[in-house]
């Protein structure tokens, strides 16, 4: 069987997205900035797409800026928030330890430019604590950026409350919602969000398109200089095919949000229950505030890349937070931020489901996993050492 369980990395395009894209490629080929009918046609379609995306987020069309990806939106939002802060003499930013590298590396860049950044800890369950955020706020805090849903462990942060706190204190609030949009309810007004990043290929749109939502009261400046596209804020001919596909995909996801959430969480819960039966394993993240489709586990005594390749040989696509898969010597910063020791973080597995997966596929994963873990453990000196010191390997004690 072939099972694609890496939807947090990217998703297959939906039929709706592909159907929206095809005419855009062969017929709607005009440049939206052109005066003639071909241009006007393309511009109408672009406007329609913008209205759709805005509606899905509870925003106004003029607050939506199309970008090349979620990473670009993150970079733009954070650099802008910092610039606006610096203009007002405020150079302190608050974020957290488990942000995506698009956020962390942008913050690191700002630190080199003289900004102070406080990274809130996330404790065992991956959640940011409001009291700690409140305590970290200073008179010179200009921006708070906290991701809506973590890509690795699926933890859903208390965004509405964080937004409310920031609103109260007059601090700009940005959220990287790349893993959330299209999967859980996101409403920029109700959730008190000033700026938000999203990425098409995480909800069945093609790769190469994303968007930044920026509240109209925020004086956003250009990220990319050039033509007058995106209300003069982002030069570059609009990626019409991708944008139309993204709007169609988002509309479809939002229309089926409740039923998809129910279907996917049921599969997720069965997966978690089944994997938990494997001794010396732990599920990462918060049981109550978890994305519908993301399952993160650590299996003691084995290493992530070998686990992934064994799964791959069995036809299952997944990912891991081990060092070998991150290209550095350290395992994922997210798992380390949870307080997991290196040895355990190396044995991590992330399975991420979407509404295209089936219970049959979940059953297949659960069939394959115990043997794979057992085989890898049998050749692991770490596991064999653990066995020597354990009374009962079945309860891992």
């Amino acid at each position, binding site marked *: 069987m072939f099972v694609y369980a890496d939807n947090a990395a990217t998703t297959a395009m939906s039929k709706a997205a592909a159907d929206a894209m095809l005419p855009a490629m062969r017929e709607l080929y005009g440049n939206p900035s052109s005066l003639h009918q071909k241009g006007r046609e393309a511009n109408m379609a672009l406007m329609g797409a913008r209205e759709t995306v805005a509606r899905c987020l509870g925003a106004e069309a003029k607050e939506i800026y199309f970008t090349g990806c979620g990473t670009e939106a993150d970079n733009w939002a954070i650099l802008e928030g910092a610039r606006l802060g610096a203009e007002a003499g405020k150079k302190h930013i608050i974020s957290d330890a488990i942000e995506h590298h698009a956020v962390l590396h942008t913050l690191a860049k700002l630190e080199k430019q003289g900004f102070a950044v406080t990274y809130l800890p996330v404790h065992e369950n991956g959640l940011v604590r409001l009291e700690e955020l409140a305590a970290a706020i200073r008179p010179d805090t200009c921006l708070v950026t906290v991701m809506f849903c973590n890509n690795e462990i699926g933890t859903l942060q208390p965004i509405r409350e964080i937004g409310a706190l920031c609103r109260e204190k007059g601090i700009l609030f940005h959220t990287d919602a790349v893993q959330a949009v299209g999967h859980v309810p996101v409403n920029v007004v109700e959730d008190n969000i000033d700026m938000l990043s999203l990425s098409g290929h995480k909800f069945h749109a093609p790769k190469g398109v994303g968007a930044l939502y920026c509240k109209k009261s925020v004086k956003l400046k250009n990220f990319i200089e050039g033509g007058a596209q995106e209300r003069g804020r982002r030069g570059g001919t609009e990626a019409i095919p991708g944008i139309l596909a993204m709007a169609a995909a988002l509309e479809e996801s939002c229309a089926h949000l409740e039923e998809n959430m129910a279907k996917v969480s049921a599969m997720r819960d069965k997966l978690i229950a089944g994997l938990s039966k494997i001794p010396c394993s732990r599920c990462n993240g918060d049981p109550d505030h978890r994305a519908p489709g993301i399952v993160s586990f650590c299996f003691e*005594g084995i*290493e992530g890349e070998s686990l992934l390749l064994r799964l791959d040989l069995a036809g299952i696509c997944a990912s891991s937070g081990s*060092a070998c898969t991150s290209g550095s*010597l350290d395992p994922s910063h997210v798992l380390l931020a949870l307080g997991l020791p290196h*040895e355990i973080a*190396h044995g991590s597995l992330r399975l991420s489901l979407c509404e295209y997966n089936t219970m049959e596929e979940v059953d297949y994963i659960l069939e394959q996993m115990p043997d794979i873990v057992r085989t890898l453990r049998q050749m*692991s*000196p*770490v*596991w064999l050492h653990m066995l020597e010191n354990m009374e009962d390997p079945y309860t891992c004690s």
Partner: protein
Amino acid sequence: MAMEYSEKVMEHFAHPHNVGTIEDANGIGEVGNAKCGDIMRMYLKIDENEIIEDVKFQTFGCASAIATSSIATDMIKGKPVTEALSLTNKAVVEALDGLPAVKIHCSVLAEQAVKAAVADYYKRKGMPCDICESCDCVHEHIKAGME
């Protein structure tokens, strides 16, 4: 981060040779550490003619780590101890038809595991051992290289 593994690497990963332990091993070497994500343990049974009559390994690590330790056991089984000492990581990589650049350190670890096991054999026999100059964790070298 895409990674291309040769067929040989995948074969050794999927069906590793000589996995296990040796009850009456007379040379045991362990290198690496769990913090780095790679540990290799080699068990040697060396006979009175200094021939490696049996070898087994255990590895905690990625596909490259498993493949390099597996093929290393093949390369030294039935050979004289002195030949095992001259095993190089280059030979291991060649035998596997190559490794991605970021995984070459796994082959170094395999070489070190073999040498550590031989060093242990010499130590038990009370013989002098000058293998140990390369005994610090190969990952320290990688870290230094990355800084």
